């Protein structure tokens, strides 16, 4: 079980909805940073992911190590939050 999860999203991003759907099906909670509402945090998303895209999911593990998942990528997201 991760310590916490942050997802960078936008209003129109369907893949962001899929990440949230998956996490809620697995019983996780998360903090959402909506870049349409907080455009000043775009640089942070870019720095974390190296990509100009959302969703960016940041999973902080119990040992404080961090995993960043770019896009809706179940093969990476599922083990990261397991």
């Amino acid at each position, binding site marked *: 079980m991760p310590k916490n999860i942050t997802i960078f999203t*936008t209003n*129109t*991003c*369907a*893949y962001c*909805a*899929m990440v949230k*759907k*998956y996490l809620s099906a697995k019983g996780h909670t998360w903090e959402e940073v909506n*870049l*349409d509402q907080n*455009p000043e945090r*775009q640089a942070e998303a*870019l720095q974390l992911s*190296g*990509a*100009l*895209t*959302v969703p960016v999911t940041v999973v902080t593990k119990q040992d404080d190590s961090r995993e960043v998942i*770019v*896009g*809706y990528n*179940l*093969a990476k997201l599922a083990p990261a939050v397991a």
Partner: protein
Amino acid sequence: MSEAEVQKHDVIMIGAGPAALAAAVYTTREDIDTLLFERGVVGGLAAITDMVDNYPGFAEGIEGLTLAQNLQNQAERFGAVIELGEVTKISDEGDYKRLETTSGDMLARAVLIATGSDYKKIGVPGEKEYYARGVHYCATCDGAFYRDKKLVVIGGGNSAIQESIFLTRFASHIDLLVRSSIKASDVLQKELQKYVDDGKITVHLNTATDEIVGSDNVVTKVVGTKEGAKVEFETDGVFIFVGLVPNTQFLAGSDIELDEIGFIKTDKHLMTSMRGVFAAGDVRSGATMQIASAVGEGATAALIIREYLEGKLVPTSEHAEEIITPQPC
């Protein structure tokens, strides 16, 4: 996984876009046990479309994401189960079809392939290198990163025009590069003209894209050719909408016949060359690539699958099937 543990279903649908979700509404209402596999977004391409203006029943249009959510809710209300995962292979075992999936093998008495299509790449230098770092295929996903920036959009069909218009809510200016002429509907062309008149979009016809150039990890310009001469467009990012390729790679080596482009061939009952396997929506050869038609084909396929499961769709010759006793719904 032992053979005894392999899940068996009446119908497995591959994909959960408009075609499969519509089909699932019909099969589940008939109490036919239905599982859908989705590797991407539930709602398919419809979910990543900003606004859908031509789906009947919504006089003011409907956001693609909302339409997708409604389709999903409706299918799930009647008992459809959506598994998040991918089907990687299909083979014929007679009464059952075996599907290899990311959740293990599954067996189904009937299968509906509704895997739609994905964005085509143009294959120029820079496209792969700058993917998601300046080169994009989904405006609703990545457009927000281009507030007050300059963009190039490549393409001249409905999607390219629709998405260019969507991107004007972020970008300061868009250069639209069209290889030959614009092929979009009249309504979209009229809408586009408003943005051209406002100076938000500049259309460059007969302009081929040759290279996407960048430096220090960011895209800086697009190099192309117009009437034999080299042209350059300074930009912060590039969105590419040059058509679609069918999602049928997983059928390579199967007995399911494809057309020369890779779309699935079906008979008049939407059955493929593998008996008991049907196809509907954008992935079907001859499809009209619209949500309304995908939904219509999904409903049609579901009703025919019901006949098939009840043994009423019998082969009358090697290549023809006949529904013996068609039932009204």
